[in-house]
């Protein structure tokens, strides 16, 4: 029973929707789950429904044409849309609904970190970029900070490139380095989940493949959800893929199935490159 019962077969064999529940086939617990998620910008409904479950220590990719709502959906997960859009429905983080006003959004965001489309290092030194949030949270022990800087930069696979210029401005790094620094910065606060919003869209192919390698390693310790407009990228790195179209998650399945035997015609058209 992997198939959503509300999605009957149409006449020509295609499904209207096909949302798979990963917990039924993998032993991995579900870390993040959305139920009846709707997002509105004023009177405009941007996400009509997105009921997805994300398993622990896996990479899930969100794909779809531009304007399909994949980024809006991702940004709703750690409530970056607060004050911008209205988000209704449940966002269950390890069973706790975090889409409630009484939830401390700052503590939640520390556990559900985010990396953005354009690298956004602060205009501070590389070292201060990593330690900034830690210091604000009261960690001042120099030795401990040094240690975290080193581990996070190593995790983000940028340590060797910057270890001799930690005091230099982060803005002097290349775009790809900046993006990996931003990942290191997100890792430094020890999150549980990492959300990435088209993290490679501003990078050249070499930086992109470095970033992908990094993500594959990070999967061992973190749950990763990544929005990408690059289908090859999704195919290369993700375990699960969700296809979004017009504000709706139409299909969600193991990545290999999405790309080889999709059940929804629109998914098929999209991964075949017919539109996007």
């Amino acid at each position, binding site marked *: 029973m992997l198939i959503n019962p509300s999605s009957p077969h149409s006449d020509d064999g295609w499904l209207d929707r096909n949302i798979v529940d990963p917990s039924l086939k993998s032993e991995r617990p579900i870390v993040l789950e959305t139920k009846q998620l709707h997002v509105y910008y004023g009177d405009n409904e941007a996400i009509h429904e997105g009921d997805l479950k994300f398993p622990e220590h896996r990479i899930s990719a969100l794909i779809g044409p531009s304007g399909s709502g994949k980024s809006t959906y991702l940004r709703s997960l750690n409530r*970056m849309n607060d004050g911008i859009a209205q988000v209704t429905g449940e966002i269950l983080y390890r069973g706790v609904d975090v889409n409630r006003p009484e939830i401390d959004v*700052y503590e939640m*965001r520390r556990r559900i970190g985010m990396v*953005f489309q*354009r690298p956004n290092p602060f*205009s501070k030194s590389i070292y201060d970029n990593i330690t*900034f949030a830690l210091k*604000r949270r009261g960690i001042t022990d120099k030795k401990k900070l040094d240690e975290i800087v080193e581990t996070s930069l190593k995790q983000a696979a940028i340590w060797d490139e910057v270890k001799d210029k930690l005091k*230099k401005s982060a803005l002097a790094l290349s775009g790809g380095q900046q993006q990996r620094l931003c990942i290191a910065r997100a890792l430094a606060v020890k999150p549980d989940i990492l959300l990435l919003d088209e993290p490679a869209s501003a990078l050249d192919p070499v930086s992109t493949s470095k970033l992908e390698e990094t993500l594959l390693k990070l999967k061992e310790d973190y749950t990763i959800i990544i929005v990408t407009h690059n289908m090859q990228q999704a195919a290369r790195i993700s375990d699960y893929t969700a296809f979004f179209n017009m504000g709706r998650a139409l299909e969600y399945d193991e990545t290999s199935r999405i790309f080889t035997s999709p059940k929804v015609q629109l998914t098929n058209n999209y991964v075949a490159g017919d539109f996007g």
Partner: protein
Amino acid sequence: MNSKISNRIAIATLYVIASTIVVILAALLGYIIISGLPAISWHFLTSPARAFTSGGGIGIQLFNSFYLLILTMIISFPIALGAGIYLNEYAKQNWVTSLVRTSIEILSSLPSVVVGLFGFLIFVVQFGFGFSILSGAFALTFFNLPLLTRSIEEALAAVPDEQREGGLALGLSKWETVLHIIVPAALPTILTGVILSAGRIFGEAAALIFTAGQSAPALNFTDWNPFNISSPLNPMRPAETLAVHIWKINSEGIMPDAKAISSGSSAVLVISVLGFNLLARFVGHRLFKRLTAG
């Protein structure tokens, strides 16, 4: 008339008008500097004014101008920063915000003499500060707040939203993000605004004649205890500034060399304001480079 001829006449006229403006400024600046420079000497810049005889200087007035400027900035900068932050980062588009914006606009267009009179009424009379540096600093704060708030707000607005998102995504509050990331990133622009407004404060007189007063009692420049009456740092003493001094000696000055002193003071005032302008450009440029360079 032929449209080509009228075109030529019109453009020639525009050339004349534009050159006239340049000539006016050149004449103004030339007059101020040429008539003022001969009066400027170390003695002139450092010695106290004389009421009835010639040979007085502007030392105390010059010190007062700077002290008042610094005090005004100390009071007005935190308020303008807070207001600018709220307007740019928190304010929603509703009637409260538009009321606040309107009132800031009103304050910025109020004649400075009205601001001075209000300062006189509140600080000099009601609070009993008398004619004092403190009263003057508060009056200048009102005078300074609208423009400074606006320039801080614009500086903050120029910092890309990605920087804010970067802070928020780390689990930091918006306040921490703004204070420790956005404000430092906007610092070059903010400082430029501060220095430009400093030039305006330095030359302001109308708001001061009834608040900081029109007399400059002798100061003992060896006594830096702010509680002593003759200490330069005492904020409760009356303090005629350089700009007020120029007005004062031209309205009722009786020293024989009033004109030379005014010329010298005007030159000092204009050179200082030009200095503030140049400094603003320089600081903005330098800081920007330092923040972005490796």
